[in-house]
């Protein structure tokens, strides 16, 4: 079955969505990500949607769900790279992407994640050694 790869980078999980998602792929991503947050103890999730040409209400709900679920698991979510036309359409459609932080690009998204979890970063780095599985 098709899956969107989830990369682990330090305390963060990175997802780059390169294709237009059909529903099953999107719901799989949602559950895979939450499981990965649980398994790795990740503190942040960065989702790059720069290759997505549209975000409809279904996809918006998936992004919102990922944000809320991760939050419950003590991880922050940042969605980056939204195309201007997608942003215009989302607002006109009436979708606010509640509970999800956004940043212009991957670099700023990483900065935002670092800032959000900044206070606990120090102690986590020390623990990094024993996280191998």
């Amino acid at each position, binding site marked *: 079955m098709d899956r969107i790869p989830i990369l682990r980078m330090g305390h963060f999980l990175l997802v780059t969505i390169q294709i237009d998602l*059909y529903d099953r792929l999107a719901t799989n991503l949602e559950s895979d990500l939450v499981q990965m947050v649980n398994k790795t103890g990740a503190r942040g999730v960065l989702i790059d949607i720069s290759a997505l040409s549209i975000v409809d209400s*279904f996809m918006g709900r998936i992004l919102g769900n990922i944000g809320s679920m991760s939050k419950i698991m003590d991880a922050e979510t940042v969605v980056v790279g939204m195309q201007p*036309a997608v942003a215009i359409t989302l607002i006109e459609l009436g979708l606010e992407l509640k509970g999800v932080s956004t940043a212009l690009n991957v670099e700023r998204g990483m900065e935002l994640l670092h800032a959000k979890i900044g206070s606990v970063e120090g102690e986590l780095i020390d623990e990094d050694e024993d996280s191998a599985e």
Partner: protein
Amino acid sequence: MKMKIVLNKDSMQIEKEQDVVPFRNRVKEYAVKIGMGVVNQTKLITAASELVRNMLKYGGGGMVLIEAISEGRDNGIRLTFRDKGPGILDIAQAMKDGYSSGKSLGIGLPGTKRLVNEFDIKSAIGEGTTVSIIKWKNG
């Protein structure tokens, strides 16, 4: 009153969620062909995506007609979604912001209407629902 002339058309059967992405791609091809800009393209494709999902969810799938049309100097894309589902009991209510009979966000129909230039819905209980939208190239 100006006449709408159909320049080109195509129809697609939508039966399962995997049909959604190829359908969106076909709509995009049509929009690109008439020279529609990226923002209007995105609005049209998003509206199409919302309506095709509704059709799958409430109508059990159906048929979509994609047409490149022209009216005077204006070119546009018209999409007609036809299902043989249970129909909508109260269209006025379904068109209200915040209303949803399913477990979606409830922005479906009114949100979709805001994205396009013309929006028409007809429904008969027990017979099905037909939704028709038009996005003008410069609309």
